């Protein structure tokens, strides 16, 4: 219990810290936000008007508290460029990104975990070497390039077996679920293969260690074959660790996801954020950065709590933070 309370408190502190960092990053710009947003060569009156409109003339602390208060009320501001509410904009983009991430993660797990098990159980030197090489190469492919290769293989119109669309997302979004799903297939495959390779590596090393452990020996002495013991006992004991890895991979995978979104011209969070940074829509950037960081802190929190729930040794270890 003490752990959970402390972890939650830390989540709140980290959230506040991130909000300060994001806020500060946007105030140390050369010039100020108004002049950056107004763009070069805009008349000083326009800049002054913008400054007034955004309340940039007020003290920093007031601006910060004002923003934080608005966030707490769920008011993420209005985009200067499109005039739409930022939360609406983010929600729409998330409807592309989240399915992409979920599909990518599912593909990664479907590939990485069984292959990792096979690699850990492989007997011969050659088989072991081949699995290891596959994992190392799979994890070394840049997301951009992996996506390109997939387009060149399967992209409609360009690929060798051009069967899947490689650009864009249907304008009706999920109102055309079939089309939407198909347009996400190739990008999800790109994300999945890359993440799957690292998941395979983690599964193999976690299981490899456990395969020679006393726990597996004990299960074998009770009547399991080695394969059974490694898969049933080893995989279960590796689960907390793998949950952490998936959580971390999830955070690391977002770079790949952003690249893939750009490459496949998907109107998701990554593309949106990069566009907003490019357009200097700083009000939107500020809120979006904060929302994404908060989301990943939340994932981290969930992973830590899940890790604890999956290992009975940690549950009773009287609130000791890190042991």
């Amino acid at each position, binding site marked *: 219990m003490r752990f959970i309370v402390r972890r939650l408190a830390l989540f709140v502190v980290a959230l506040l810290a991130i909000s300060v960092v994001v806020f500060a990053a946007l105030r140390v710009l050369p010039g100020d936000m108004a002049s950056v947003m107004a763009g070069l060569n805009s008349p000083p009156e326009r800049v002054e008007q913008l400054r007034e409109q955004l309340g940039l003339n007020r003290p920093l602390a007031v601006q910060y508290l004002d923003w934080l208060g608005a966030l707490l009320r769920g008011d993420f501001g209005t985009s200067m460029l499109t005039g739409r509410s930022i939360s609406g904009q983010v929600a729409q983009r998330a409807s592309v990104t989240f399915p992409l991430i979920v599909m990518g993660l599912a593909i990664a797990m479907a590939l990485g975990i069984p292959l990792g098990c096979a690699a850990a159980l492989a*007997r011969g030197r050659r088989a072991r070497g081949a699995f290891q090489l596959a994992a190392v190469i799979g994890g070394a492919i840049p997301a951009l390039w992996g996506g390109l290769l997939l387009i060149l293989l399967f992209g409609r119109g360009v690929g060798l077996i051009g069967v899947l669309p490689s650009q864009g997302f249907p304008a009706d979004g999920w109102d055309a679920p079939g089309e939407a799903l198909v347009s996400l297939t190739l990008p999800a495959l790109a994300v999945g293969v890359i993440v799957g390779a690292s998941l395979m590596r983690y599964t193999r090393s976690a299981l490899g260690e456990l395969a020679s452990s006393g*726990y597996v020996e*004990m299960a074998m*002495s009770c009547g399991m*074959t080695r*394969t*059974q013991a490694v898969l049933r*006992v080893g995989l279960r*004991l590796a689960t907390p660790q793998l949950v952490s890895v998936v959580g971390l991979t999830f955070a690391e995978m977002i770079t790949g996801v952003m690249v893939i979104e750009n490459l496949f011209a998907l109107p998701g969070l990554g593309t949106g954020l990069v566009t907003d940074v490019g357009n200097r829509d700083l009000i939107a950037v500020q809120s979006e950065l904060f929302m994404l960081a908060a989301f990943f802190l939340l994932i981290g929190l969930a992973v830590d709590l899940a890790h604890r729930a999956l290992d009975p040794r940690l549950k*009773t270890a009287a609130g000791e933070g890190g042991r």
Partner: protein
Amino acid sequence: MAVEISGLRIAIGGRDIVHGVDLSIGDGERVGLIGSSGSGKSMIARAMLGLLPVQAEASGSIRLDGTQVVGAPDRALADLRGRYTGMVFQNPAATLNPVLTVGRQVALPLRLHYDLSRAERAERVAAMLERVGLPADVASKYPHELSGGQRQRVGIAAALVTSPRLIVADEPTTALDSITQRQIVDLLVSLVDDAGASMLFITHDFSVLARATTRCAVLDAGRIVETGATADLLEHPADARTARLVDAARALALRPGGGDDGGSGGGDTAGDAAVEEKDMA
């Protein structure tokens, strides 16, 4: 169950660990295997149950009631393990599955080999826990919630719950304090004798050996240097290496508190047992 080992060789990564060992255990006999750390005792024990690490290569012959173990497929050996044979490990903290309750851990061999109803299984587990002297509420606890001695009782319960014909005990007392050591050895001996099973008892501690076995073999650097009745061997060691081991054991026993320092002696398989014990505590 009668065990007949002849010409057993074990190599790991091209290095020979065991060089041609012959050893027999009669039906219902308790035999000790003693030797210093790294002499290959644990490897012999593991070879008997097909538990050798994947990199290890065994040759020669091990027959359990006539069934050849060396080179047998893992599936066939798994059918023997936990049904006709049981194993008690050195360090229960590193062998009892940390995510299983004691009840489920002890029930595992029953679950794997017999088609029992939940209630029947629970009943047999409860009876077994009682026989090893554990309170009934232990069944719903996790291994890390128990003391070292209690954990080893759980290990013994899991090894004996199916009434196997052969028990292999690999330094079952090394990680325990001297009073608990005695209790555990006596418990193991009485349970094995009640069941009429055979036992191979591995240790590097002569005081434990005398309590646990009637006959024993001394292993040094992968070879058996002497075999005989345990009491004789302790009184009149014929081989110089045995004498040295006996002397060393005596010297250790004379040191104040010598026998009590838990797993500091280490073992063939788990050199870091002492560290782990401390961590768990």
